[in-house]
């Protein structure tokens, strides 16, 4: 089932204003220092958050909650990658990572790798000065979801000894398909907010997403489906949740004067096939 194909675009109409300091990305210690971070390739989640709210006085509130799977926990299956297909990807004594990251539902039904964004009017996006690196290592992307602010630059890199190509499936940002021979890279400036799927045509299992957010208030859920977005001023917000396989949903979040909010639980489920329109 394919709810979000190459073509997903997310219209976040948030604009720019500044808010107080926060500790971001609750699960990953590394992402507290926003910017150049990367998780170990073995991690289940492999996500990276490159957005940070600007510190400000009123913004001491936070939104938090969980994205949970509605339905039976789907069985995890390995990607089918034959030896011939992965020739040259790994050393002779190593095995290629066959983990399928498209839908990760924990025992507690938490959905990892969902992107949560909150549109806040008049915010100035914090664009990291350094390039955000999306590397190809052992014929896998080193990150599965990259959450980057609009205006950032992504550097696609190939650290392997085999050639890859970077084929982006985007609609508003210029789509391209370039070969990256061993140890080379290519930069792309993100000019429109949307979700870009990145694939390699040579290794059909390779897939990653660059979520271009038009907001500083965004994060990716951890392996329990949990998320926390800090730095919000008191008020009522709509949190939008996107998942590569489950599609989109949204939830209301109210941050009180004291900066408190109730934890929200967001259910997502596999859509029935019928939702497609073909005509």
């Amino acid at each position, binding site marked *: 089932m394919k709810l979000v*194909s*190459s073509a997903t675009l997310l219209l976040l109409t948030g604009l720019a204003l500044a808010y107080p300091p926060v500790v971001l990305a609750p699960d990953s210690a590394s992402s507290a220092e926003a910017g150049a971070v990367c998780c170990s390739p073995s991690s289940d989640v492999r996500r990276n958050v490159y957005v940070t709210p600007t510190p400000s006085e009123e913004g001491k509130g936070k939104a938090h909650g969980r994205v949970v799977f509605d339905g039976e926990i789907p069985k995890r299956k390995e990607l089918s990658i034959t030896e011939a*297909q992965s020739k040259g990807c790994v050393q002779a004594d190593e095995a290629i990572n066959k983990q399928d990251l498209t839908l990760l539902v924990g025992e507690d039904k938490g959905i990892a790798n969902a992107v949560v964004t909150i549109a806040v009017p008049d915010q100035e996006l914090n664009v990291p000065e350094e390039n955000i690196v999306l590397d190809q290592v052992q014929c896998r992307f080193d990150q599965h979801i990259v959450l980057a602010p609009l205006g950032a630059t992504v550097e696609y890199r190939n650290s392997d000894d085999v050639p890859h190509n*970077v084929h982006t499936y985007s609609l508003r940002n210029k789509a391209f*398909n370039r070969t990256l021979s061993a140890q080379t890279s290519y930069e792309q400036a993100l000019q429109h907010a949307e979700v870009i799927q990145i*694939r390699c045509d040579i290794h059909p299992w390779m897939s990653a997403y660059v979520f271009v957010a038009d907001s500083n208030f965004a994060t990716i859920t951890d392996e329990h489906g949990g998320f926390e977005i800090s730095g919000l001023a008191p008020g009522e917000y709509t949190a939008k949740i996107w998942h590569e396989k489950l599609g989109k949903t949204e939830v209301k979040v109210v941050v009180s004067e004291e900066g408190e909010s109730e934890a929200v639980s967001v259910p997502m489920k596999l859509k029935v*096939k019928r939702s497609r329109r073909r005509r």
Partner: protein
Amino acid sequence: MADRGDTHYKVSTLNMWFLLSSGFLLVATAWMVIDDWNAPWKKYQAEFRKIDEVRTRDRIESAEMQAQAESAAGIGVLLAEATSRLDARQDEVSGVEQELHEAKGKLFEVSENTKKAKQNLAWERYLIEEHRNHENEPTYGEERLREFTRVFVELQAEEEQRAATVDEITERLADLNEEVTSLAGKKKAAQGGLTTLQKKLNRLAPEAPTEKLANVLRDFPGLDFVDPRNKVKKQVLSDLSFELNFTKGARIDMCQTCHEAADMPGYTSDIIVDGEPIANPYLTHPNLDLYLSAKSPHPVTEMGCTICHRGSGQALDFIRADHRPVGGEQMEEWRKKYHWHKQHHWDYPMLDSDFIEASCVQCHKGSMELIAEAAPTVSEGYRLFEERGCYSCHKVEWFPTTRKPGPTLKNLQAKLDRTWVDSWVANPTNFRPSTKMPRIFHLSNYEPEAVITTSEWGEGREMLGQEWTENMIASITAYLFNAAPKRAADPMPIPGDADRGRESYRLAGCLACHNMAGYPGQTLPTIDLAFQPNNENEHGPNLRGVATKLNRDWLYQWLMDPKAYWPETRMPDLGLSQQEAADITAYIMDDPDGIFRDVTDVWELEESTYDAEVLREMAREFFSRLGRTELARRFAGENPEFRWDREEDLLLAVGERQIGHNGCFSCHLIGGFEETSPIGVELTNWGSKTVDKLAWEFRAKIMAHENGWDLGTREEFKHYRENWIEEKLKNPRIFDEQKVKSPLELTRMPQFGLSDSEILAISNFVVGLVDDEVALAEMDESPADAAMDYGMRVVRQQNCMACHVVEPGRVQFHDEEGVLHDIAAEPVIFDGLDMPPKMEDIDQFRQYIADYEAEFEELEDIGFRLLEVAPDFGLTGESIYITKDQLVGLKSPQGGDFVRVVADYYLNGIEMFDPEATGDQKYYSWTYGPDGAVADVDGELRSYHDQGYDKVRWTFAPPVLLDEGSKVQRSWFYSFLMDPFPIRQQLRVHMPAFNITESESAAVANYFAHKAEQESPASYARAMRASAGITPKRSLAGKRPWPELTNQIQDKEVVTAAELAPMAGLAAKTILGIEDGSKPDTEASFDKLEVFGDSIGFSKSGAVNPSIEAILQQSASYHSLEGLGREVAFKGVNCFTCHWLNGTGPTQLDSPIAWAPDLGLTRDRLRPDWTRDWLWNPNLIYPGTSMAANFASSEPQYQAQYPDSTNAQQIEAVLDWLFNFDRTESADNN
């Protein structure tokens, strides 16, 4: 003088006679003068002058003209300033002028001297030569010769120098005057339009009293022969003769005497005169780009009016021109107003506006396909004439198709059983409502209860329509089955699997030409594309219900080799494996999905019956020449050769005659009728038949009666050729109404069940089949046009568009300033869906948006991906977003519906409907393998549900054929069509082997080559303008090839046509015209645009020239770079990770989704220029393709394989290798 008395007249009487006759002559002359002065057409011209005056005043006051006036005034001020500035420098100017004068004088002097010196030198040389020769002194006079030469050379040098000085001074002078000269020029240009208009107004409505008086005098009766304002305007068409009462002369059309504005732009009903919008005869002819204007293909000066409109061109009178009312009401009105009546002695009355396209046929016989867009109705008629098989009964001499349209019946025993045929013949639409087979029986002249004849030649019992018809059917099927050998199809060698067959049926290509749409009134619970009819999948019959008709073994053999059964079939050989054919057979015959055994409610199998008495009567009719005695002998069984006492024999004898009589053999191949000529009336010249030769019988009167018309009024209106044929097509037996005829005299044309628009289309075509002089003077198509037309016909006949997109869809929208754009593009997928919307027409698309918004979310804007460079918006492959309000129209792409079927299956599987289930469970997705897996060509099951539309489309569906002529070599294309083989190994659908001749296959290859040639100036122009906006800007772009340029940029600006125009020295309109492919603009100005392109360093691979097969095998770099290219290909780019090579699979042999075409084919298949562009930037050719840009990085890669090389050098090396390498090379050699 004395009266001599010998005269026989009286002077006084004579005077009286003289007076009378003078009086009579005077009156007659006056009458003549008055009558001429009063001619009705003059009133039209006077009225037109009035209209023209109003329009001219409006235009002078229009904002545009006012702006022109203002701008001219503005320039005038500048000009005055500049002039005064120049005056201030008068001394300087005079100085320079003086200098120039002197320099010219000196130049003259020196040139004269030079000439003289040259003559002297020649003379001296002659003298010396003579002397040397006579005196035998070979060295005589050398010194002198040298001296003379020196003088001449020195003078020559001085002359050059002086000339340069003159040029320099002239330039200085021009520089001084430049400002004034250019401003004066601009002022004149700015005023131009206005000045012309003012002159015109002055002519139309002069202010000066003398001129007014002059006008009165010019129009005065009796004086108006000198220089009248009212003049007959005629086109004398000496090339087009015209026959009137057996004499031939030049065709003369005087229509423009009244229709003065016909070829002048701008006279539309927007012009209001005396509170009324202007109407004919004062309007401009529609579409002047195509008709009347000098640059159009139909200039009025060469074609006149009546060639197309018919009517009498030499008549200057409304009625005698044979004007034709549109509709009965107008006719009544004309009768009252003009005493209108038909011109009974004019063979070609003016054509009804619905039939005007009929005239196209007379010249465009050889280009009916090419005019499809300009003349949609008559082209549709031409297509239907073929599609419905009209040509097979009615000969049209030049008609290009000759094959029998219906399937062969020579072997029908293997395919069908007799009861089915009985029931089918009785009424084919009962079984298949969409069938093209017409209905032959049970029509209006065989009313079931009506008496057809009485037996025994009018002596016995009455025979009714019902039994007569039943016996006709019985005898025909009896003959058909008897003529076909009793041979069953060879049995299926292996059993099939219906489940696997379901997948093969979908992927092997069946659904490209066949659909399974429900019967009229039947609602299918599915949105599966395979159940939705479209232009392409109605090419073959709708397959609903076929399992009830076909023989299983026959179906298998048919799928394996259609030609074996029906040599002329359009069904191609799909190249199926035995297993695939067996599986598909099982799927269709076992019908697990309830499709192929689903028949209409009215369908019933009914065996035909016969009655010997009726058969005998039929035999009497058919064999009347034998006479009563012989017939009686035969019936009694006394003639051993014709034992008609045996009913079977009688049945067959009658059946043979019935087939001959009803013309079954015209459409079907039937044993015994191989050489028989078709039964219909020849239509080659039908349009020239005069109305009185058409057998209206009682029809006109019956119509008048039915409609309550007054005979002689409305009936007359209906009484034209066009109406006759329309009546005939509506009900082919209509003219038998109220007639008394014997059975063999009854009309035989069958009922085709055509819609009104189809009837109009076919009637247009038939009315256009005329034989007058014009039609005989056939148009001389250019070889390119002729080739295009032939190719388009084959492409249509073979339904290439089912699988391949041959023309992109287009989107029309307003930009923010309200300017209308029309660009080739396809819609992008809406968020949350996995297939882009289908682009049919704007209403369907709006409905799609509404449905989406109801189910998902409001759309702010809609994306379209550009399919060609649109210089105002972006490059091929880029997306533009427009709001719903901006969207104005859509044009559906030509072809490719099957691509969606394939992509849908890979992404979603088949949507199945479970009638037992409820709710969402009603629909489930089905693929052959579990979890949405598809069986790949290697037999493995793989799931592609997580892939994108683009990926599966480019990988698993048939390729698009946009610009195919630039891509492949023509000779290769030709051979490939004759003997196709898989190029893309991963495709489940194979390019089938079409049942076409060598000439047809060449036509297709030629068509694409000529198309590419024709489109190439437009694509050059678009790319050139787009390149001008790419940073580094135009002037710095250098000589880099176009596709490389597109790789190097992330940002670009839009250079509008208006901005480019002054630089290129062309009008913005002309540039846009070339970009849109306008023929006149391209012919007039493309060279100039190309020169400009060169000057800014733009380079794009040139036009395909179909007359030259440019093959790069012998490229400039032939073999010199091959080794380096091989290194780059094998070790740098690693082409064989994905590409096949000479039949060896790629490294990614386990991933069919990564496979790419065999590179071993390149040297024979592709064009080098295209391949180079492709290597630079594949996305610019096929947006979204899996082929990556391998030579796009700003730091060239692959230095290890080709040291110190640029991207361009690497590409040339790879090309050298690709086009020159050893054919035995394989990917394994790596």
